[in-house]
């Protein structure tokens, strides 16, 4: 299935993308676009806000320009897709009001990524990742009562916004190709999260049921447990419960009463204690092997340091190697197999200004 593809076979070869704003959401939205072959030009902000590790992951392959407002407008009109993560109105203030751009170039796609959207009473609120995360609902569900709601690691409000930016911009681009009509995407971090609160969001909307922070254990056979060399977990639905109990080889867990889901609800604490005891002396590797053998959803908590040496990810060609001033970084490369992908090099700020002027604007160097 994986084939060595030349650049001409990259699915987005020839697609021009302009990234404006300098933040993590826009940089992540365009990360996959450049890998799949788009010519992504990043308009560098006056001050770099991405950390070196973020740059190593998000900027490979992107061409970088320093451009004034007038030139930026010309670049936007030469692009197929503009992705930006400035505050609402920031583009317009630079002479790039999205509706005006669309009037000049109807097939253009402009994706604006913000914490709270372009309109509404909180549109202009100040936000960091944590503050945007707070408004989206996921934060309230993570962690454990009575401790505070707990943020995920690594800026997930911004990453989620960027991921939505990628797929939404691509959908709009496809529409522009087929129908000749681009559009302006107003995507907010809050709404991206608010629409994916699993069962908790719709249940609250339906009958006002509260959703407490449950920590690592939703119920006795759905959670993370301490094991001998770290933490491991199980997520068994009713259909997997018999296989899980049989798999444990534990006489108490194999008692028929635990097969009854209604009974399990009444005996959750007792059952949870038994499951906790079962995990306690297991190694992560053993848990995974048992899960695979018995087709039970079992996992182990792995760190990025564990994964960077993972034979499985290596075999699937998951990592790109990026040369950085601090050495060679291994970062996630192609997000899925089956499409041409190219790893890229890091470019210096504004290093490609002349080349991009020539290629996109026809200007002489």
């Amino acid at each position, binding site marked *: 299935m994986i084939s060595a593809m030349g650049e001409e076979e990259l*699915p987005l070869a020839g697609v021009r993308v302009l990234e404006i704003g300098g933040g993590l959401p826009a940089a992540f939205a365009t*990360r*996959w676009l450049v890998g799949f072959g788009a010519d992504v030009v990043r308009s560098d902000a006056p001050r770099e806000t991405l950390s070196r*590790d973020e740059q*190593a*992951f*998000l900027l490979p392959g992107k061409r970088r320009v320093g451009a004034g407002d007038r030139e930026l407008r010309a670049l936007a009109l030469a692009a197929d897709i503009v992705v930006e993560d400035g505050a609402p109105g920031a583009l317009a203030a630079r002479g790039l009001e999205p509706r005006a751009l669309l009037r000049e170039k109807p097939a253009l796609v402009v994706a604006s990524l913000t914490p709270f959207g372009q*309109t*509404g009473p*909180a549109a202009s609120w*100040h936000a*960091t990742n*944590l*503050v945007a995360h*707070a*408004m989206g*609902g*996921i934060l*309230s569900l993570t962690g454990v009562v009575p*401790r*505070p*709601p*707990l943020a*995920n690691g*690594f800026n*997930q409000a911004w990453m*989620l916004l960027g*991921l939505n930016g990628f*797929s939404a911009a691509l959908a709009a681009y496809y*529409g522009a190709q*087929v129908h000749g009509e681009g*559009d*302006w995407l107003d*995507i907010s971090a809050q*709404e991206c999260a*608010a629409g994916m*609160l699993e069962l908790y969001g*719709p249940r609250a*909307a339906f009958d006002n049921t*509260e*959703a407490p922070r449950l920590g*690592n254990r939703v119920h006795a056979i759905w959670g*993370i447990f301490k094991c001998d060399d770290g*933490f491991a*977990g199980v*997520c068994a*639905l009713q259909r997997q419960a018999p296989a899980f109990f049989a798999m444990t080889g534990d006489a108490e867990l194999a008692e028929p009463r635990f097969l009854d889901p209604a009974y399990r609800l009444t005996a959750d604490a007792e059952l949870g204690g038994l499951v906790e005891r079962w995990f306690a002396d297991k190694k992560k590797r053993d848990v995974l092997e048992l899960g695979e053998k018995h087709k039970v*959803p*079992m996992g182990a908590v792995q*760190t990025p340091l564990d*994964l960077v040496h993972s034979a499985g990810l290596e*075999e*699937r060609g*998951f990592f790109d190697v990026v040369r950085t001033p601090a050495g060679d*970084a291994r*970062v996630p490369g192609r*997000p*899925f*197999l*089956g499409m041409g992908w190219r790893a890229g090099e890091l470019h210096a700020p504004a290093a490609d200004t002349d080349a991009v002027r020539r290629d996109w604007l026809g200007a002489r160097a």
Partner: protein
Amino acid sequence: MKRLPLDGVRVADLSMMWAGPFATRLLAEMGAEIVKIESPRAWDNVRTLLPQPGATEPWNTSFYFNDYNRDKKSLTLDLSQPRGKELFLELVAKCDCVIENYRADVLDKLGIGWDVLRAANPGISLVSMAGFGKTGPEKGLVGFGPIIEQMAGMASTTGYGDDGIPYKTGISYGDPIGGISAAGAVVLALIQRRRTGRGAWIDLAQRETMAQMLGPAFAAASLRGETPVHRGNRDPRFAPQGVYRALGRDQWVAISAQDDAAWRALARTIGAGALDSLSLEERRARHDELDRRIEAWTSRLGPREAAEALQRGGVAAAPVLDANAIHQDPHLAARGAWVELPHPKMKSWKQPASAWRLVEAKPLLRRHAPLFGEHNREILCGLLGHAESELEPLRAAGIIGDAPIGAREG
């Protein structure tokens, strides 16, 4: 009004639970026609995961199922029967893409793997989204979202910092991340087919799309051998930052002093003006003390009141909205972020509008999630051209159905 971008695209959707259905919900919002295929004997488990008390048709009255399957059509087909498979392949011939999130070995075992699909429709694309992919030494692992999160490194990065415990996200985070990525993968396949005429088979491992969400952590691990540090709600770039107790039961407000000016405003607002000249480094060093000062102030106010007072001073702050409060949020209300769709068997409730707001095409929710097998006639007789008289024998053979077989028995 502009057309929606995926208007004219048809997707055969074999996916179940959350990751795949979330992908196809997004595609439906963008205008694609989604034909959701379930077997009378193996239906989407989410239909019956949380049955409503007293419901006579629990598979048709699940708010959980509805939220993630609206704007789709339902076709029931038992793919384990030869006739069911034939009908499925007839449908494939009229589709642009097939999407599935079965365990890695299931599609081939059903006899409808990539080669079979391509023979039925040379232009078809297939997006497979098994938890650990279709290849590699871990393809046999089974996983739902929380397992994906553990195996991708995400859980290891989340924790309070004082107990050594990694925490799962409060939702099955791996699922929607896989879903959003898969929606992009479908579109990418459409773009490639438009250029080359060839479909594509995309092998999306949900664990790998989840790991992408931690990209910078892999740079840190490979360059410096770093393992994640649990910082609770802190961030070295902003101090103080945290989630602070507010007035009321389990009420919280998130606050970040995003720069020196914001800190000065925060310090003055909480009555700590004497500290307003502290540098970022000093604020980091005295973070515990500053947290106590902040919480002494926030705990006397409601979360929104505290956040609005701080926002007026230029400080990044927001109430922590829980699953109930988010449906009452005035900002989301003003943006029309919730839509109530009529449903023939349930009262209506607030469902999220499309987060992909196309300002000019304005994607709107069109229809509630389909009843089980609701579109059998439309698909089989209308789209595929079979006679109405063929339906009853198919129903009698259990190849199609209007109710899951055995669901009433739980």
